[in-house]
């Protein structure tokens, strides 16, 4: 099988601090990988390297040129209307369609500054989804969304991924979300991928499935949340 992303012995330091330290990662085309890890462990740093926005201090990295990123902040152009922020060059209809899908059909002509936190995040999501990249990098794209909206957005991403089959790397703090969406969950710790869990339990992806719950408990333990995992 060919790979979409191939990372070997990647290192990245900021001053004295080594954030990524010999990290290896492979993504197959169409594969959906969730990345979890403690705050400040280097998830965004890895995404930026994959996106070609920073250069590594060492190691090898191959990634397709057609990639799209949903940044941790929305990064909307304040001087363009919402629909233009999604379109940026594409026709208005495409943007309107994408915005309707993220539930913002009524905000096409609003200025970004008037959006709520979750609305802005959805616009940024629409901007990435409306283009059909070969690599989709998502940095906590659902963090500012309420439970219901989040479910809808997760379904939307899942559908789009199923349709176009880009490789996806999703950074998330929500273990349930990781299990729900990903083919594989990897945890970043001490600058490398410390653990890897294939989501391959039988049955539906629901907490009622013991396989789900089992993986969930293991992942939370991985993150050091043993007692919480057990508490639930």
């Amino acid at each position, binding site marked *: 099988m060919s790979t979409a992303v191939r990372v070997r012995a990647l290192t990245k330091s900021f001053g004295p601090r080594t954030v990524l330290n010999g990290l290896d990662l492979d993504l197959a085309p169409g594969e959906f990988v969730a990345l979890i890890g403690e705050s400040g462990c280097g998830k965004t740093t890895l995404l930026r390297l994959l996106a070609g926005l920073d250069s590594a201090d060492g190691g090898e990295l191959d990634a397709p040129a057609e990639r799209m990123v949903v940044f941790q902040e929305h*990064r909307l152009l304040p*001087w*363009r209307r919402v629909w233009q922020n999604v379109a940026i060059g594409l026709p208005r209809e495409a943007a309107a369609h994408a915005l309707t899908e993220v539930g913002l059909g009524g905000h096409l002509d609003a*200025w970004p500054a008037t959006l709520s936190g979750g609305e802005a995040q959805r616009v940024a999501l629409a901007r990435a989804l409306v*283009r059909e990249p070969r690599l989709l990098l998502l940095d906590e794209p659902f963090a500012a969304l309420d439970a219901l909206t989040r479910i809808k957005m997760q379904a939307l991403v899942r559908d789009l991924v199923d349709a176009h089959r880009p490789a996806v790397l999703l950074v998330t703090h929500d273990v349930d979300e990781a299990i729900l969406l990903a083919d594989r969950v990897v945890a970043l710790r001490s600058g490398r991928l410390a653990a890897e869990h294939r989501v391959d339990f039988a049955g539906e992806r629901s907490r009622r499935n013991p396989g789900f719950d089992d993986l969930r408990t293991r992942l939370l333990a991985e993150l050091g949340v043993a007692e919480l995992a057990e508490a639930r």
Partner: protein
Amino acid sequence: MTAVFARPAARTRFPYRTVSWLTPVAVLALWEILARTGLLPKQVLPAPSSVLAKAADLIADGELPSNLLASLQRSATGFVIGAILGLGAGLLVGLSKVAEALLDRSIQMVRAVPFLAILPLVIVWFGIGEAGKIFLIALGTAVPLYLTTVLGIRQIDPKLLEMTHIVGLGRAARIRWVVLPGALPSILGGLRLSLTAAWLALVIAETLGADAGLGFMATNAREFLQTDVIVLVVLIYAAIGILCDLVTRLLERRLLRWHPTYARLTA
């Protein structure tokens, strides 16, 4: 405890426009009174009314309109050329470190040289026709626009530029989508300086073989101690200052509607 009570939608707003015209009007009125009562000797500062009378004369005999027209043509031409050059150089230097290395230092040198000192060179290069005058006006216009364009580009959030990179915009599209709009507040600030610079440069440009123009008029009045014309020219320049500011304010209101601060400005 603070209490915020309901306020009617149309709460009284500060009457910006009225107040802003008050100061200039008050100054004019005070000046007229001082002149009438003789506290301000006529040779020192003639009354606004007598300056207006002089203006009426000069308008009647066609001198003022023809001078203004001559200068308007010159400064408009020079402004357009200078604005294009200033903006262009600013974009280049703001976006490319190589262009900055090649151009910036020279521009910083040139802009510090007084016009008066380079007049002989201008003559040698451009002769005594319009070209030299327009060159000076263009130079005066280009410098503030150049500086503020570079300034504006430096202040653009690099995160937005990264985003356009990801979205796959080319260089030209990036300029259109991010660089120009992001630098626009600063560029418009520079425009304010450039618009008046185009007129200020006239005073020196029109010592070069001009026989009409506002600057020519100013120089003559100075040489001949025509205090009323001197004051008239000053008032015309002041009016130009207000006009340039108004134009810029209107542009700001229109082009920076998206901006939380500028959107609240009064023109």
